[in-house]
């Protein structure tokens, strides 16, 4: 909390009720991208707005969501995970790439997979972000994803992408 006041941590909007002993509960934003298939050698996603009555996810299919909050820090590295109440329902959030670069700040794109059919609601508390002290000099993150606030699919397969980076 004190780090939000000093500006070392960005959580917008911020609510004290979402603070945990070692993390902050973030909400699911409205925009969801659904994989619809490969077209011309590229993954294609359809963008939908989550209805208030919820949206039922198919098991085993990957969806891209977004955090409702803008989350970032110029001082700490971040680890963003799902909430245990969601994990207990078989909902995977950020299953693999959970580490947030120090100096990035944006609405995070969430990788979401359900083990069983699962109803997603906009604005639901879906996970937690924790902040980790770093050791060593901080170099600014120059990557692409750290500025994106809409659910953003991978650019790995885009033409001209340098796989050595």
């Amino acid at each position, binding site marked *: 909390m004190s780090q939000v006041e000093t500006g070392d941590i960005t959580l917008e909007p911020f609510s004290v009720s979402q603070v945990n*002993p070692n993390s902050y509960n973030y909400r699911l934003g409205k925009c969801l991208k659904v994989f619809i298939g490969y077209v011309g050698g590229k993954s294609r996603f359809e963008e939908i707005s989550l209805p208030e009555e919820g949206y039922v996810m198919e098991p085993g299919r990957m969806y891209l969501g977004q955090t409702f909050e803008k989350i970032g820090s110029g001082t700490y590295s971040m680890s963003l*995970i799902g909430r245990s*109440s*969601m994990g*207990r329902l078989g909902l995977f959030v950020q299953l693999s790439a959970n580490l947030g670069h120090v100096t990035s700040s944006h609405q995070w794109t969430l990788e979401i997979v359900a083990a069983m059919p699962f109803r997603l609601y906009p604005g639901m508390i879906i996970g937690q972000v924790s902040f980790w002290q770093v050791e060593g000099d901080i170099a600014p993150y120059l990557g692409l994803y750290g500025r994106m606030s809409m659910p953003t699919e991978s650019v790995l397969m885009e033409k001209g992408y340098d796989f050595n980076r």
Partner: protein
Amino acid sequence: MILTGSEIQKRHTNGQIRIEPFSSDRLTTNTYDLALGGKLLKYTEDVLDPKKENAFKVFEIPEEGYQMKAGEFLLAETVEKIGSNHLVPIIHAKSGTARMGLFVHVTADLFDIGYYGKSTLQLYATLPVRIYPGMLIAQVSFWVPKGEIDLYSGKYQGGEGPQASKSHQG
């Protein structure tokens, strides 16, 4: 900062870490190995809805093991009760478990400081896999927190047996 195995031993002796039952031979370089308890929980709903209480059944794992199907999702428990009022536990699969295609927690690996109880494991089989009661399935590491400590007093405190989601309670 992450604790080493010998530091986990020391903090267990001085009471900063609670692990019951505890055996020194379960210590690794930076973790303590956890065993699978005897009970499994399976949801019986067609669609899981975080706004309501979802129906489930609980059953014992037979000695000869339980065969999980690929894509099956179950809640399980650790034999050990674990927790700390001073350090942050994080749960991981043992790599031998993960290499069989079995995930032991799907998303929430971080324990709140102040929680003490059995850990509910979120088992997800990506391949068919057989699980046995008492097998070493997970490991826990301990991390030094920064800032004032406000102890956990949430809805899962004192967990015994696999604890179904209480997301509908807010």
